[in-house]
């Protein structure tokens, strides 16, 4: 479509976003198949990789669906994560979530870097690798529960929702005996529907972490909280309030995301028996298969929002200062310019550069740990249950297709 702004050369042809007719409302949820992105995006992506869309609050934003566009947007310092900016895309139609104010995800530049480095040291590749035995043990215990429940058992309940929470507890330093206390608090926080409920849930969470921090002030503990208390709280580089915020947001970020990748990933493998068979025959393919599943499965439903602080060109389209953009990794991960046969699940392909962990300074700092968890869970599951199959055969999967992360809410398996 030659008249489209995305096809126009050079910034001199910049058209203000508010003068354009939106191509779509965002987000879209309707899917033709359980493992493909909503069809409306796919059609739009090929025609217009940076397209005007209407957000839930009625305001316009640019939707970015190309691989290069998403990478450019998420690595450009002129595109800000400041969610209190009036131009910041509002994806849910609700007022800005107070909970997330002044968390790492909402910071920019040097301030972001200052706090972020305190976390990355806890999440290096070496640290992740050192956790393999613990992850394996936690996984095997979950698989015992699955086996004990017998054929027809729900993999989401027994494995997907259990392993990432337990691993996160171990990492941060929450005693396993208090694991259910923590997940209960986290669920309350996420499910709160009024701001009063949310404030109460947050207070519970903060006072719980405050006790853990006090413990580390009196005892050396070899966990994330212990290290951060010793290295940054005791030196004054970190306030108690910020330490607690970093700790609980890290825990919260690592749970549902990984859990849903376990459920959806196993569903995808069981629905692609040729790929599953390949992994059984050649288990060394599993690390690559983890990246391929992350590339292929369209989990991120609401995209990654930014607001332009200056005029910025993104994949041929000028974004004017003050305008919002939403980067959509699931579409970028299907960009035929980067991935051949993008709509095929192919565990042999090199999919390492997928954008499901985001890109740029805000890329998921726990990617190495998440990758390892998925590798261990998928591998142990296939070893333990060589005849694993979907208990309901070809029946429709029970998907939650309007959640923040697309997921299967239940996955009955048999063996």
């Amino acid at each position, binding site marked *: 479509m030659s008249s489209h702004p995305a096809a126009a050369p050079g910034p001199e042809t910049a058209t203000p976003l508010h003068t354009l007719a939106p191509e779509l409302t965002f987000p879209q949820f309707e899917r033709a198949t359980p493992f493909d992105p909503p069809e409306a995006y796919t059609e739009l992506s090929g025609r217009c990789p940076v397209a005007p869309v209407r957000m839930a609050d009625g305001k316009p934003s640019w939707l970015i669906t190309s691989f290069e566009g998403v990478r450019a947007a998420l690595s450009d310092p002129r595109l800000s994560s400041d969610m209190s900016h009036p131009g910041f895309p509002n994806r849910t139609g609700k007022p800005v979530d107070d909970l997330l104010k002044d968390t790492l995800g909402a910071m920019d530049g040097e301030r972001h870097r200052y706090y972020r480095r305190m976390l990355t040291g806890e999440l290096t590749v070496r640290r992740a690798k050192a956790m393999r035995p613990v992850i394996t043990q936690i996984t095997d215990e979950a698989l015992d529960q699955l086996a004990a429940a017998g054929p027809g058992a729900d993999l989401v309940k027994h494995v997907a929702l259990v392993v990432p929470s337990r691993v996160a507890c171990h990492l941060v330093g929450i005693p396993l005996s208090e694991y259910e206390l923590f997940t209960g608090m986290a669920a309350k926080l996420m499910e709160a529907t009024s701001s009063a409920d949310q404030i109460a849930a947050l207070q519970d969470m903060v006072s719980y972490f405050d006790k853990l921090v006090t413990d580390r002030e009196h005892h050396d503990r070899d966990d994330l909280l212990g290290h951060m208390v010793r290295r940054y709280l005791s030196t004054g580089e970190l306030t108690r309030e910020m330490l607690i915020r970093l700790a609980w947001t890290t825990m919260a970020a690592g749970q549902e995301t990984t859990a849903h990748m376990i459920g959806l990933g196993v569903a995808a493998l069981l629905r692609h028996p040729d790929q599953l068979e390949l992994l059984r025959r050649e288990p060394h393919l599993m690390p690559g298969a983890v990246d391929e599943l992350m590339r292929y499965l369209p989990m991120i439903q609401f995209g990654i929002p930014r607001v332009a602080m200056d005029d910025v060109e993104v994949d041929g389209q000028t974004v004017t200062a003050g305008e919002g953009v939403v980067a959509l990794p699931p579409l970028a991960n299907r960009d035929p310019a980067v991935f051949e046969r993008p709509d095929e699940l192919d565990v042999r392909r090199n999919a390492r550069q997928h954008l499901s962990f985001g890109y740029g300074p805000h890329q998921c700092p726990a*990617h190495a740990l998440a990758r390892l968890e998925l590798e261990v869970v998928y591998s142990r599951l296939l070893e333990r249950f060589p005849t694993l199959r979907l208990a309901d055969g070809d029946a429709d999967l029970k998907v939650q297709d309007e959640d923040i992360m697309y997921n299967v809410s239940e996955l009955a398996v048999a063996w």
Partner: protein
Amino acid sequence: MVRVNLDRDRCYGLGQCVLAAPDVFDQDDEGIAWLLVEEPRPEQHDEVRQAAMACPRQAIGVAD
């Protein structure tokens, strides 16, 4: 000959390079990457290029 250049000031400590090319990159206590070798062997060239591609901060240069 291939020469690798790493801008530690850009690095955000994500370790994508360590996953891609574990014999060429490592991370310090704060996650910031450092180079184990500046001139990787021919069989490492492919993974070094992958590391450069995967770096979310575009902090790795590979010169032929």
